[in-house]
């Protein structure tokens, strides 16, 4: 919760700075705050936030999933293939794609919890395996829908009108749904309680009779399922996927979003609000750069710098506050 507050403050500062600097003296409007820009931004937050939650499920158990980007690629290639080349209906194609991704998660879970392999190794190999497999599967062709998926594309590009000029992007609603669901699971169900116990001290959880293996497997399934759902949204958004690059490095955005939001890499710690805010920050910063600067070549440097600054500030403020709290 404390972490969520910190990242929230940083997000607010970045947003306020961007809004202030994006003022256009000719039209008198703040470009950052325009309905069009906010819609775009919220849609991207929705898309990447889903991946943030995917990463969080596994990180909470003390594991890691480096194959999120590759699973996004799998979903991005398989969904158009089912829809256009196999003539599946929209719903059926979506369900089949998600099942395939859940299957990948099951495979990861079995290797990690059943066979005792390192999550890093399993998912790093998965990253290479699935992307390579998709390149072969798609024969390096771009996979797209053409006009085949107009209905389904609403999931990624649709908006629910909210007032006259503003519409709430559907992916943000999907993220809200996932966030609330995750919150309920984490803080109100037995499953969530066990997940956090397992993440902090697997040995103790096992001694307490917690089915740690089954839980770990379930966490990997949840991760790949969410990554697959994210992948479907991404491909529905841009309408085409190239197996060699689609979703490449997205696992880093996902992990960064989750960790920024206070999901501890050692496991057993995480807040839903933090993940949403962390993922949001990862999307606001590039937007800031493109709206304010004439060149985007410093993008990575600015993103890295701002986040590092945030982490330093968090630590310094934390120390200062704890010193103040102790009576002299």
């Amino acid at each position, binding site marked *: 919760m404390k972490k969520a507050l910190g990242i929230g403050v940083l997000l607010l500062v970045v947003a306020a700075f961007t809004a202030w600097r*994006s003022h256009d003296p000719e*039209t008198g409007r703040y*470009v*950052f705050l*325009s309905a*069009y*820009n906010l819609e*775009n931004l919220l849609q*991207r937050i929705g*898309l990447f936030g889903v991946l943030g939650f995917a990463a969080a499920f596994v990180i909470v158990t003390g594991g890691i999933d480096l194959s999120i980007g590759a699973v996004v690629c799998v979903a991005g290639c398989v969904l158009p293939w089912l829809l256009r080349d196999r003539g599946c209906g929209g719903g059926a194609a979506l369900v089949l794609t998600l099942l395939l991704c859940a299957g990948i998660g099951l495979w990861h879970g079995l290797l990690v919890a059943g066979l005792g392999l390192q999550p890093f190794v399993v998912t790093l190999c998965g990253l290479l395996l699935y*992307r*390579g497999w998709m*390149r072969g599967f798609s*024969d*390096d*062709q*771009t996979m*797209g829908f*053409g006009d085949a998926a107009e209905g389904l594309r609403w999931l990624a*590009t649709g908006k629910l009108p909210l007032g006259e000029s503003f519409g709430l992007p559907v992916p943000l609603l999907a993220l809200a749904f996932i966030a609330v669901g995750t919150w309920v699971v984490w803080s109100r169900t037995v499953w969530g309680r066990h997940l956090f116990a397992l993440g902090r001290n697997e040995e103790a959880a096992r001694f307490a009779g917690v089915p740690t293996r089954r839980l770990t497997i379930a966490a990997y399934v949840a991760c790949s399922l969410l990554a697959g759902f994210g992948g479907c949204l*991404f491909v529905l*958004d*841009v*309408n*085409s*996927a*190239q*197996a*060699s*690059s*689609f979703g*490449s490095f997205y696992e880093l955005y996902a992990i960064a979003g989750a960790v920024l939001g206070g999901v501890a890499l050692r496991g057993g710690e995480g807040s839903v609000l933090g993940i949403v805010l962390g993922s949001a920050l990862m999307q606001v910063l*590039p*937007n800031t750069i*493109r*709206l304010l*600067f*004439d*060149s*985007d*070549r410093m993008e990575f440097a600015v993103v890295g710098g701002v986040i590092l600054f945030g982490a330093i500030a968090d630590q310094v403020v934390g120390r200062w506050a704890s010193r103040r709290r102790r009576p002299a």
Partner: protein
Amino acid sequence: MTMHRRAVFAFAAALLLVAAVAGQDAPRKPKLAFVTNCVAEFWTVGSFGVEAAKAEFGVDAVVRMPANGTAEEQKRILEDLLAKGVDGIAVSPKDPENMTALLDKVAGRALLVTHDSDAPKSKRLCYVGMDNYDAGRLCGQLVKQALPDGGAVVLFVGNLDQDNARRRRQGVIDELLDRSRDPARFDKQDAPLKGGKYEVRATFTDQFDRQKGKAAAQDALARWSDVAAMVGLFEYEPPLLLETVKAADRLGKVKIVGFDENDATLQGIVDGHVHGTVVQNPYEYGRQSLALLAALVREKDAERRAALMPKERFVDIPARAITKANVEAFWTDLRQKTGRK
């Protein structure tokens, strides 16, 4: 331009005849490789050209595409090919400026030509392709056509560390600003570019991430309400621009000009939403690179080999502008070549 291309063809054909006659003594087919700079549909068309050349010129050939589109990856591909042993390589160098040493090493152990993107400082034998600067100027002419009254233009490109991308972009800029022809010129990303009726507001890069390309297009529309045209310099970009402009409800107000022959781009031209696109001829890149290499491999005599070399060591395969006027004919031909419906 077509003169020496024909000459190469004629010579290659003649050589083929000779090879066919002498073939009984030397049954081994030349082993050639065609290396691209990334994975794209564009190169799928190119690989069909390679396929055609295999039968036409009696060679063995492999196509290699670097999955992540990085120079390191391309380096590994080239080194592996040398290790495997090939007679000739045609490569589209990812980073010509810094790959000179590597290309020279390759040229020392196999016949090397560049295609698509040139590396003039290296010891490559020849460049097969178009001049990207000239293609950029052609694209600039399309923008001028779309915006006879001038306006603000935003450019989108995969990255700017690749020679063909830099020259393509410079061509567009120089044409819009009515500058003289100077392929060596380079305007920085944040340089103010205004002249006459046209202004180039910005160049956005997306590192081949489609989602990022789309986000950049959205942000450009959000930032400037007066954008009159957007230009996508890489194959996958015009469709993203089309998507974005459509979603922002600014079709017609923001003109779209592109590069290459993505289906969605061509459909956009047919529908009247995309003004035009500049297409290269990857099919011929593949076919003619191999034709030249095949001829060179079979000619052992240095002097006669030199005579095979085209003028200025450049096989020009010029770019063409596709607009509503010629899109149907072009698309039909493309489908025929790629064997797609």
